């Protein structure tokens, strides 16, 4: 027996509502992130991630309320990402019940933010979220993988493999690796990208982007992921947490 592979549903939340369509017939209000979180907890999710997609300051209090109400009833780790810019943002999310925070764009703009957060709260609270894609054109990075922002719309020119290594040195506790090439395709995880990042860092990797069916998950683990994250396929009821765990177990890995 060894450490279980973590299966993590991700909820995109906008102004207190789940954005991507959700199809659970047994839920009274499928757009309520708190109710959906509780349903995933019952299904056996190992962690939960909330992504505050707008993260405007006017909606910040709404997210704090969602996190607080969720933490009242689910007793598994909860990560909240989106719009985290300062250690004070981290502090307010931890105080209302988050266990970890996802940091993305703000760390690209100011890498020292990673060490400021890690020094104050410990590395284990900091999940560095990396939206990466292949850039083979004239301006390609050394590794061919580039960090993007704005959901893949904006190029940064930063080499993704250099960035994950740098983030680990600065104190990130975990990498949430989202392949912008695979995201939304439902053709499976970006195994090449997972392998490349695995060879750079020795902190845990959460693979994200591209899952379309239960059998897509084990190859991501074989490629080096410690945890797997998905949104749409869970929300649309295409597969359950249990079915994903069955597929992972059948491939010879431990699950909870």
């Amino acid at each position: 027996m060894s450490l279980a592979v973590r299966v993590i549903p991700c909820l995109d939340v906008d102004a207190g509502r789940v954005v991507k369509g959700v199809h659970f017939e047994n839920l009274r209000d499928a757009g309520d992130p708190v109710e959906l979180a509780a349903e995933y907890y019952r299904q056996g999710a190992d962690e939960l991630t909330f992504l505050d997609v707008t993260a405007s300051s006017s909606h910040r209090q709404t997210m704090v309320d969602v996190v607080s109400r969720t933490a009242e009833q689910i007793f598994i780790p909860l990560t909240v990402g989106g719009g985290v810019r300062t250690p004070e943002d981290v502090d307010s999310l931890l105080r209302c019940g988050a266990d970890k925070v996802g940091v993305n764009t703000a760390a690209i703009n100011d890498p020292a933010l990673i060490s400021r957060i890690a020094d104050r709260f410990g590395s284990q609270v900091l999940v560095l979220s990396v939206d990466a894609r292949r850039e083979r054109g004239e301006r390609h990075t050394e590794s061919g993988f580039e960090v993007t922002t704005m959901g893949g719309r904006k190029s940064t020119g930063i080499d993704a493999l250099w960035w994950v290594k740098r983030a680990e040195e600065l104190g990130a506790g975990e990498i949430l690796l989202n392949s912008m090439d695979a995201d939304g395709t439902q053709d499976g995880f970006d195994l090449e990208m997972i392998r490349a990042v695995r060879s750079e860092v020795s902190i845990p990797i959460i693979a994200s982007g591209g899952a379309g069916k239960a059998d897509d998950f084990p190859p991501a683990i074989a490629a080096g992921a410690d945890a797997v994250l998905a949104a749409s396929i869970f929300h649309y009821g295409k597969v359950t947490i249990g079915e994903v765990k069955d597929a992972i177990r059948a491939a010879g890995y431990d699950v909870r």
Partner: protein
Amino acid sequence: MTAVTVFDYGFGNVRSMVRALANLGLDVTLTSDYRTSLEADGLVVPGVGAFGACMTGLKAVGGDRVILDRLRAGRPVLGVCVGQQIMFDAGHEHGVETAGLGLIGGDVVRLDAPVVPHMGWDTVDAPEGSVLLRGVEDERFYFVHSYAAADVVPKAAIDYDGSSFELAPLPTVNDAHDGPAPEKVTWCTYGNSTFVAAYERGPLFATQFHPEKSARAGAKLLQNWVDVL
């Protein structure tokens, strides 16, 4: 109603622990007040972050005195995560050694594994007669840490305030012995490291994992602890 204090010294996601205990129907107080912490039926000492910072923070609000005064009086204490680590003799982080409370013999060192932190749900190896793990010996618990106690060195007495005392058996635990309470150590193996996942000796209880984040298995473990208060 059983009263439990969660010791508030600025380290750890204390809200999660308060909620998990409240969910068991306990009267939970979050405070660093000496008298409240001393008089509660049980005291939980959470802890997240660096060993040295936690020790400094704990001492700054008199937490070391609360813990030792409770244990000397045979009143139960439960340390969680770094709250377990600081019960040991010393911690070693980034090449710096920091003295712990010295309640358990041994040092806290960095984990030796291909991927660190050790993050996620893992199995444990519980000893016969464990109070904490009773009924959940085969469950997984949520860990998140880069350091742990790799060994337990037998310790007869605890030096405190110029004198010494022994951890006496809890009257509420059936296998009471004469003399000092026996140690019960639950182990976990990750990578090349085998380390202390949970520790029990008389009124002193501790876990490296987070019962408050370990779903139903964690709730059962906390209930097991509450049952001996």
